[in-house]
C-alpha cells in the first residue's frame, strides 16, 4: 500500500522450517517473515501447514529443522515466553482468554504486566468491548470474545502480532473491526502475520501474501501479484 512507512528488516522470521507429525511431512520448507509496517497474509488450503508454520514462528512448537530469527539473529529454539519478552504476541486458533476470569481483570493483568494501564480504556473503546468487561469470556459471543482477545494484543503494544485464523466464525462487522485495528497497528510500525480463509475480508486488508502450499511457501510482494499468479488462483481460489 502506498501510505505504508519505509519498510525495515524483518523483526521475526521463520526460515526453511521442516516439521513432521509422525509419518506425515507437514512442512518441507516453510518460510514466513514479520515485517514492520506490513500485514502479511499467510494463505493456503486446509492442511497446507499454515498453523504449524505460525506456531513454530511464535515459539509455540519446535521445528524438526530450520531456524527462527529474531531481529536478524538466528536461534535454533525459541519459546513463546521468550519471544513475548521481545515484543511478540501470538493468537492461537483456540481461545486465548481464561474462561473463568472476567475480561476486564485479564486486560488489567496485561496492562499491569507491560506498564500499559493507561491504554486499557482506549483499546477497549476501540474494540467495542467496554460493556462486557465484567463478563467472563464464556459469557460472550464469538465476535465479542475475539475482539477482547485482539484487545489483549493491542494493550500489550507488541512489535509483532501473529494471529491464527482471527476471523473464524465471527460476523463480518466484527471481522472488519478487527482488521481495521490490525491495519492501524501496522501503519504505526507494527508487524502483523495472520492466516484465514475469509478471502473477501482478508485480501483488502493484507499488504503481502505468503502462499503456503504442499509444505512449501512462496512470497508475493502484493495481493495483486498473488491474484495474477495462475497457480495461486488455481490452487486456492474457487473457479469462476
Amino acid at each position, binding site marked *: 500500500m502506498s501510505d505504508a512507512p519505509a519498510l525495515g528488516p524483518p523483526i521475526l522470521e521463520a526460515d526453511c522450517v521442516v516439521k513432521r507429525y509422525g509419518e506425515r511431512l507437514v512442512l518441507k520448507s516453510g518460510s514466513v517473515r514479520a515485517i514492520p509496517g506490513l500485514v502479511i497474509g499467510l494463505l493456503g488450503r486446509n492442511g497446507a501447514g499454515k498453523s504449524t508454520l505460525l506456531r513454530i514462528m511464535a515459539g*509455540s512448537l519446535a521445528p524438526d529443522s530450520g531456524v527462527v530469527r529474531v531481529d536478524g539473529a538466528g536461534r535454533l529454539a525459541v519459546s*513463546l515466553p521468550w519471544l513475548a519478552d521481545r515484543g511478540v504476541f501470538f493468537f*492461537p486458533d483456540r481461545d486465548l*482468554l481464561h474462561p473463568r476470569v472476567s475480561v476486564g481483570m485479564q486486560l488489567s493483568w496485561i496492562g499491569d504486566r507491560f506498564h500499559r494501564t493507561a491504554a486499557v480504556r482506549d483499546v477497549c473503546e476501540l474494540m467495542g468491548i467496554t460493556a462486557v468487561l465484567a463478563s467472563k469470556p464464556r459469557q460472550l459471543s464469538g465476535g465479542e470474545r475475539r475482539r477482547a482477545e485482539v484487545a489483549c494484543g493491542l494493550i500489550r503494544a507488541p512489535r509483532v502480532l501473529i494471529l491464527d485464523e482471527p476471523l473464524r466464525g465471527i460476523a463480518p462487522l466484527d471481522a472488519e473491526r478487527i482488521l481495521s485495528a490490525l491495519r492501524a497497528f501496522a501503519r504505526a510500525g507494527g508487524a502483523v502475520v495472520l492466516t484465514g480463509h475469509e478471502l473477501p475480508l482478508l485480501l483488502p486488508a493484507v499488504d503481502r501474501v505468503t502462499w503456503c502450499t504442499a509444505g512449501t511457501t512462496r512470497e508475493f510482494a502484493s495481493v495483486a501479484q498473488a491474484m495474477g499468479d495462475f497457480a495461486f488462483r488455481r490452487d486456492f481460489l474457487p473457479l469462476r
Partner: protein
Amino acid sequence: MVYIAVRIAATIPLGFAANSAADLAGLMIGIGLVGFTVLLVTIDQRRNGAPDLFPNLGVSRTRLAAVAAAPALLGEIVLALALVPPRV
C-alpha cells in the same frame, strides 16, 4: 484438586532429614507428592484451557504450574509438619 492433595498429604508424614531409611522414604514420598501436585495443576490448566494468555505475558508453563500449585504445596507442608511427631 487442592482438597485431594491435602487429604493425601495428611496421610503421609514427610521426613525432612535423611537420617534413616524411614526419613529418606518420607522425603522421597514428599518429593513425589510435590511432583504429583504440579502434574495435577498442569492437567487442570490444560483441561480448563486458556494457557496461551500466560506465555504471551512472558510466563512459562512450568512457572505457571509452580505458582498455581503453590497453595496446595503450602497446605501439604503445613499439614505434614503438624502430623510429624516432634523429634526428641
